[in-house]
């Protein structure tokens, strides 16, 4: 998932869960049914899971632009200098 997708997913997750919590309490209070509240909230959690957890394609519409191969060859990677090993006495 690209960065933009991750940001969207985090916001969507929070909004979906909070809204299903609020709706669940309101509907449960109005119908005097604790069971209704729990079922609506469970449904909301399942919906949020289906929308935000799998790696859907629309979360990958802003992929990272990696450096071109030709450009990379112009700037060689720094070399690792071989270190002397000091022996213990």
């Amino acid at each position, binding site marked *: 998932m690209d960065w933009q997708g991750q940001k969207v997913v985090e916001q969507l997750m929070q909004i979906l*869960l909070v809204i299903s919590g609020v709706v669940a309490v309101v509907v449960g209070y109005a119908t005097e049914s604790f069971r209704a509240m729990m079922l609506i909230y469970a449904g909301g959690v399942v919906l949020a899971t289906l929308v935000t957890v799998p790696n859907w394609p629309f979360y990958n519409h802003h992929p990272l632009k990696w450096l071109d191969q030709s450009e990379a060859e112009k700037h060689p990677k720094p070399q690792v200098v071989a270190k002397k090993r000091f022996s213990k006495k």
Partner: protein
Amino acid sequence: MHSFGYRANSLLTFAVTILAFMCAIVSFSFSNQTPSAQIQILNINWFQKQPHGNDEVSLTLNITADLQSLFTWNTKQVFAFVAAEYKTSKNSLNQVSLWDAIIPEKEHAKFWIQISNKYRFIDQGYNLRRKDFNLTLHWHVMPKTGKMFADKIVMSGYSLPDAYR
């Protein structure tokens, strides 16, 4: 949010946190409580001193109560019990539970029942002759989520006879 496991964990913990908030909000549902009750002693079946020295009495009670106003959408059940309360020289308060019931629904909370005492009314000693006592209906309102509240109605004016029968 970079991996499946990260997102699943984040969603689950946030969902449970919201559930905790929802339960906290729900636990503040209170109703306008107007319970009522009456208890009659129809008959003293027998009244004796047991071999181990303690008094025991058997009563037939007629219990009428309306506890419907205690129920809210957050009530799981109401536990009600009737206790005989009296004072002796040994104990400043004796409470002997005579009957109890679990009321699971509002519809069952308005009731009338005539029974002999479910639990034995035995004194710690032999102080029951000519004893004045109160019959108190206690109830515990047990919620689905939240704090349990308890209260009672005290009915006074009951007394036991002078002599064993």
